């Protein structure tokens, strides 16, 4: 499947990109995070277990077991700090 990936705030800066199209073979958010960590460097560091970040799928907050479908919009970002 193909995912539209979005990165925000500190993670956007650390990953050096705001968005990308990603070909992905897994099923869940957990699988996707594994694939991204395998890129190493900032990806492995920022998405390591125990780091604080959020994942949204199609603009709704998701959990590791959230299932992904083709053409999903997946965003990864730090805990929010508005208001």
């Amino acid at each position, binding site marked *: 499947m193909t995912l539209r990936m979005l990165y*925000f*705030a*500190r993670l956007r800066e650390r990953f050096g990109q705001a968005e990308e199209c990603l070909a992905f073979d897994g099923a869940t958010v957990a699988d996707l995070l594994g694939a991204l960590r395998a890129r190493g460097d900032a990806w492995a560091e920022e998405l390591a277990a125990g780091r604080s970040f959020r994942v949204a799928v199609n603009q709704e907050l998701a959990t590791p077991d959230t299932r992904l479908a083709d053409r999903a919009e997946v*965003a990864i970002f*730090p*805990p*929010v700090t*508005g*208001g």
Partner: protein
Amino acid sequence: MKIRVQTEAFDLGAEIDALRAGRLDVGAVASFVGYARDINDGSDVRAMTLEHYPGMTEKALGTLADEAAARWTLIDATVVHRVGRLLPGDPIVLVAVASRHRGDAFAACAFIMDALKTRAPFWKKEETPAGERWVEARASDDAAAARWADKVGRPD
């Protein structure tokens, strides 16, 4: 429910006039405005830039307002959040809730602010004398939001 994300400043008085317009059953309007401060976590702050996730932001704010409307007896609510570069003293966020009686207005306004702080995708970057820094999320905001879980009416 009116939800807006904008770069321009907002006018609290005008927003509340619009919220009440033509409704003579409104007995109570509780509102909150958050402002950019000139100091945070012990450092001078010269300016801040607010980034958000267009699309999800409006959806998340609408969900919070709907949750408040399901939980309390409300007449209407307005949520406005600014993005872009702001200076100390600039207003950042407005939440205003109109209801018949004050208990509902106060509780819903506080709930929406607490929920916004943890669930609406905004991020602040501050300009300090030591350079730029992303604001870290606060445990106190998680605690404030958690107060509303499984509760009816006002939190502890």
